[in-house]
């Protein structure tokens, strides 16, 4: 039990991670998949950010006092990069969804699969 409380941040992260991952795998709607992916990525950001926490540490800005305890800024900096990457991924993903919708008129996986299968069959009979 004490373990659970001491590491509550990790349990939160894993719960969030699985919620996001489940949405990515189980949802057929492309927008919902992207939302799941974003939640999944955010959980990893939180994993990194919470690992940089130092008990009683303050924000890592030099105070001039040698006894000040600082939080570890490195994971935070890494996640700044990862957030930028995540934003770019999200942008590309939604741009693709818009193009798919313009082209196919649907963003549901199962309907897309049906349309694509029909196209492939038509192509195979031409070949």
């Amino acid at each position, binding site marked *: 039990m004490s373990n659970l409380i001491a590491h509550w941040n990790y349990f939160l992260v894993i719960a969030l991670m699985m919620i996001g991952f489940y949405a990515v795998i189980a949802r057929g709607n492309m927008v919902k998949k992207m939302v799941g992916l974003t939640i999944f990525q955010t959980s990893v950001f939180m994993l990194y950010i919470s690992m940089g926490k130092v008990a009683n540490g303050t924000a890592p800005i030099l105070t001039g006092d040698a006894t000040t305890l600082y939080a570890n800024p490195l*994971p935070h900096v890494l996640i700044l990069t990862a957030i930028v990457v995540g934003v770019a991924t999200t942008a590309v*993903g939604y741009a*693709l969804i818009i*193009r798919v919708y313009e*082209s196919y008129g649907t963003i549901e996986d199962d309907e897309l699969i049906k349309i694509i299968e029909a196209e492939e069959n038509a192509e195979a009979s031409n*070949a």
Partner: protein
Amino acid sequence: MMQHLPILQVLLPLLGAPLAALLRGRDMAWGLALLLTGAAFLISIILFSQQQMTGETLVYDLGGWPAPIGIVYVIDAASALVLPVISGIAFVATIAARRLVEAEIDARDHALFYAAWLLTIAGMLGQVTTGDAFNIFVFLEISSLSAYALVAMGAGRDRRALPAAFNYLILGTVGATFYVIGLGLLYMLTGTLNLMDLSERLADVQSTRAAFTALAFIALGLFLKMALFPLHFWLVPAYAHAPSAVSALMAATATKVSVYVLIRLVFGVFGIDFPGLADAVGLLVLTLGIAGAFVGTLAAILETDLKKLFAQSSIAQLGYMAIGIGAMSATGLAAAFIHLFNHALMKAALFLAIGAIAAQVGRASMGTIQGAGRQIPLTMTAILVGGLALIGVPLTAGFISKLYLVRALLEQDFWLLAALTFISSALALAYVWKIIEAAWLKERPKGAPVLVETPVHYVPAWLMVIATIGFGIFASPLVDAAYAAAHVFIGGAR
């Protein structure tokens, strides 16, 4: 100047990308891409020969900050071997891209196409060179994000490129995120991200459960990126519906870089003595590898579209690389490096030749190549030689790959696996025969569009074909370099 070469070969295409996006005019962006990939190729050849001569590891400190505080770029026997493969194929694919892109992509998008093209190449070169685990993730995402865009650009000709690119994005991002989770665990355990430093500090905590979990996350993420069976479903649609130039570049290089990163992380950081690696992970990779070799080959036999056929065969070939890794020996790793190199050459030859056909008739299938053997003999012969190399026929590079792979398996007394490797390779004959039958044994149907070939169509593919045959006959420099690369990770005699 010379000491800055390790960073320059990544920096040139990276900085060239925004410049290419701004260029207007028919061939400006292409010319820039050609110039920069050529320069990257030249640099990687220089780095390779330098490394071969001195046998030393070249470490470049970014901004003058030494490791482990700064990010370092490392040119050792392994990265020096993989760099010329990527930049060389990028260069040849860029030569071919001019014609292919003109045929398949809207003229307004050419500048942006070459911008994404340069970015994906820069990302791949960066992944190979960097000695920092988080830097690998950043370059992985640079190359992947631009690859998603490149695949989607196939939409002008084939709208299925869009859902294919989307699925690639979802699975690629999941893979990359798994890698970052594993890295987070490693950072918590060791407090460092430098690969050398990681491997040293990991030795103290290697029997913890967190370390094994980190290995599992990193390996799984990279399995997804390298399209190891059964995590390969994104690959076939992405390669089949992408523009032909993109298919050629990606099929030859993208998954290979992930194989390299897997080797670098698993053997370079965790190390062969890591508890559970040799037995649990080795067995898993061997099983998935041989299963992938069969599934990929059988699926390829059933395909009628040539791009899909050879994309399926890539699954099988990646399976062979996985078998080399799973053998967990120096010979096995050397076989994986040899096959990584050779398969890149073969697949580049195949997809460049297929691209030359697809750019003319929209799609290269068993139907559209019917009787084409007499109409475009050089292009079809390039496909034939590529196919024979995939089987592993002597005098092609594929034979050398299979030879060392079987040798690595026999070294460990994996008789059954060696036999299965042989059988699955022989099965590949079925799909190559299908192509021979369609192209040479059947007449060209009346009214079928006339296929043409001029040097612009076949020279890029033939450069790769000549390399495939060349490395099949004069294999010893490559074999030596591959063993040197393997010995970076696993010690021992040849």
